C-alpha cells in the first residue's frame, strides 16, 4: 500500500497481551502516545475489556503508521508481545508469517523455533530486582523499543515519564532503560554469535 505522496507505506501492527493488572493497556498507551505525539506518526490503540480485566488474558492493540489508519483493530500482528501463557496461547496463532515474537521468558513457554524473530526477556524478574514487580510492563517496553524500534528512544522516554503516576518517573525511567539495555545487549550478542565470536578473544 502506498501513501498519498507515493512513498511505500510503513505500518506496524503490535499486539501486547498478558494478565489483567500487569499494565498491558498502559504499555500500549505509552507506545502509541510516543509514536503519535512525540515521533509525529499516526497511531491507534484499542483494548479489550471484559472478564480479562479480572485476571484473564487481556490485550492492547497498537497500530503505528506514517499515514492515516483506517481500521484500528489488529487481526494479524507484526509484533506480538506476550506477558502471560494464556495470552500467548490465545494470540500466537494470529501472528503474521515472519512476525516478531517477544515474551517474558519466565512466564511464557514459547517454541524454540518460529518463522520470524524470537526475543525472550525476564522482564518480571528484572522489575523485581529493581524493587517493584509492577514495572515489568515498562521494562518490557524498553526491550520492545530496543529490538523493534517501533518508536524512537527519546519519544518513549518522554512518553513513559508522562504516563506513569507522579513521583514514580525516576524509577520507571530506570526500569525502561534496564529493558532497553537488555535488548541492545541481546542484539549485540546475537550479532557477535553470528560472526562466530561468542567469547572473549583468546
Amino acid at each position, binding site marked *: 500500500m502506498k501513501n498519498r505522496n507515493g512513498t511505500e507505506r510503513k505500518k506496524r501492527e503490535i499486539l501486547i497481551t498478558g494478565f489483567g493488572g500487569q499494565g498491558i493497556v498502559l504499555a500500549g498507551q505509552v507506545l502509541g502516545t510516543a509514536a503519535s505525539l512525540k515521533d509525529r506518526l499516526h497511531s491507534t490503540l484499542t483494548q479489550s475489556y471484559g472478564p480479562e480485566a479480572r485476571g484473564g488474558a487481556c490485550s492492547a492493540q497498537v497500530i503505528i503508521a506514517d499515514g492515516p489508519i483506517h481500521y484500528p483493530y489488529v487481526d494479524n500482528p507484526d509484533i506480538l508481545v506476550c506477558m502471560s501463557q494464556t495470552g500467548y496461547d490465545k494470540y500466537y496463532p494470529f501472528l503474521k508469517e515472519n512476525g516478531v515474537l517477544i515474551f517474558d521468558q519466565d512466564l511464557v513457554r514459547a517454541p524454540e523455533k518460529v518463522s520470524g524473530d524470537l526475543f525472550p*526477556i525476564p522482564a518480571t524478574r*528484572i522489575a523485581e530486582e529493581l524493587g517493584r514487580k509492577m514495572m515489568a510492563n515498562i521494562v518490557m517496553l524498553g526491550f520492545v523499543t530496543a529490538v523493534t524500534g517501533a518508536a524512537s528512544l527519546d519519544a518513549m522516554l518522554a512518553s513513559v515519564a508522562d504516563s506513569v503516576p507522579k513521583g514514580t518517573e525516576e524509577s520507571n525511567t530506570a526500569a525502561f532503560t*534496564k529493558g532497553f*539495555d*537488555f535488548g*541492545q*545487549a*541481546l542484539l*549485540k*550478542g*546475537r550479532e*557477535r*554469535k553470528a560472526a562466530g565470536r*561468542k*567469547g*572473549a*578473544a*583468546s
Partner: protein
Amino acid sequence: MENELKIILFMCNWSPHAAFQTLQDTLAPIPREVRMVRIPCSGRITKSLLFKAFETGADGVALVGCEPGTCRYGSGTAVAERNVGATREIFKLLGLGEERLTFAAFHPDQSGPLLDFLTGFRDRIASLGKSPVQQRTRKKEPPLSPKSAASIMSAHNIYTCQDCGKCSSACPVALSGKSFSPRAIAGAIAAGELDSAPIREDIWSCLTCGLCYDRCPSAVSFPEFIRDMRTVQRASGNPRFEAHEGFFQALMRTMASPDLPVDHWHWLPPSIHTDQSSKTLFFGGCAPYFDIFFRSHLDVRTADILSDGLRLLNFFDIYPAILKNERCCGHDLLWSGDREDFLKLARLNVELISDMGIEELITACPECYRAFSHDYPANGIETGFKVTHLFEVAEKVIGKGAIGFRKLNRRITFQDPCRLSRTEGGSELPRKLLNRLKVRNFTEMRDRGPSSLCCGNCAWIGCDSSSKAMQVNRLRQAKETGSDLLLTACPKCQIHLRCAMEDPFLGDEIRMEMLDLTSVLARTIQWE
C-alpha cells in the same frame, strides 16, 4: 668526570680474575671507564645487585665468571647466566636497553680475549651513551623528634586510642605468633619511646592490611600512621627491612626518571585491540616485571591479568588506550616509606596520562586502584581523570543482560586483596561477579570480605617466618572449603601464596591451583 661513562665489572675471584691480573701485570690498556669489583662467585650476584648498580649510576655492567663446567662451586655460571638473562628482560621492559648488561666467561689464560671483550663492551656502552637513569643526592633528615611524632600521631588519631586491644586481637601479625601489637606500639610512641630498637623494628613488621582500622572503635588509622613513621625512619637512614634485597624499591625509584623510555607493553599479543585515541586508559600495573623476577622458582603468570583484562574490555566493545611507557603507580614506594620518590613518580604518571587526554582510567590491580583513587589526591596530586576498577566496568556491562558464563567444573574460593576489600563496597564487587560464574560451587573462607586475611606481605617489606605462618594459615583456610581453585584479585596475593606452597614439608596439604578472577572472567564469558 660527570659525563664519563661508568662501567662496573663484577669479576669472579677464580678463573677470570687470573686473566685480569695478567692484564694488570703487563700494563695492558684496560679501558679506564671500567671499575672492577672482585667477587667470590658470579652466581652470587643477584638480580638485585645487578640492578642496583644501574640505580646508583652505572652505565654498563659486565658480570664475568668461569666457563661452564669450570665453576668451583658447580652451579655458579648457570645461576649467573640465568640472573643476567632475567635482568636483561627487565631492562627491556624498563627501556634501559638490554645491551647495557652482559655476561661473559673466561679461562685463566684468556687475558687477550678478556681485553678484547672489555674494549668491545666499553665501545658498545659508549655508542649507547649515558644511562637515562636520573641520579640524585639524598640528604639525610634528622631523626624523629617528639614534636614531629606528635603531629603524625594527631594526624592519624592515635591519641583517641582507648587501649581496648581489639586491634591486637585481630592483627594477623600478632596472631601469627610474633610479639607485635598495634596498641602497644601506639602506646609506646605516645609515651615518647620513639627510637627504641623494638619500635624501629615493629614499624616494618606491620602489613598495613587495615584489619585493625576496620575493628577500631575510635577510628585510629594505624596503617597510615605506620606509613608516616616509616617515611620518617627511612629519611633518617634507619634500616628498612626490604624484601628481595630491595629490588622492587630500586626498580620503582628508577622508574621515577623522566627520560627512561619504558616499553611496558611490548609483549602484548596482537589479538588484543587497543586504540591510542581513546579517552579511556587501561593501566596494567607491574605484573610483567614480577613474572620475570619470580620465574625461576615460582612460575607465576600474573601478566595474564593484564592481557585478560584487556580481552575482557574488548569483549565489552571497549578499546582503551595503553600508556606505552607506563610506570609503576608508586603504591609500594609510599607504603615502604619513600614518600619523596612516590611523589615524583605520581606527578610523572599524572603528567603522562593527562597528556594523552584521558578521562577515565581503568585498572585491574587493587593497589594501582587505591593509589590513583586515594593516595594521589591525599598527597596533593589531583589526577583530573576518573579512576575505575575493572570489576566495576564488568559488573555494569554484564548487569545489562544477555551475557553469561561458560561452565567451569571447579569448586572455587576467593582471597580478598586488602586494598580492595577494606574500602567501602570493595568486598562486594568481586562477589557479585563470583556469583555470576557457572562453577560447581563457590565457598567462602572462614575469614572473608572486610575481615579477610592478608597474603602475608605488603609493599615488598619484611618477609620472615611469620609471613610464612600467615600464608600457610590462609592456604589451610582455603583448603578447608573443599575448593580446588583459589581465585585472587591481586598479582601479589598470587606471588606470596604460591611462594608458601613451595614448602617441601607441607607439600600437598596447602598446594592449590590459583588464578586471578579477571582471567576466569575473560576465559569463560560469552554471549548468551
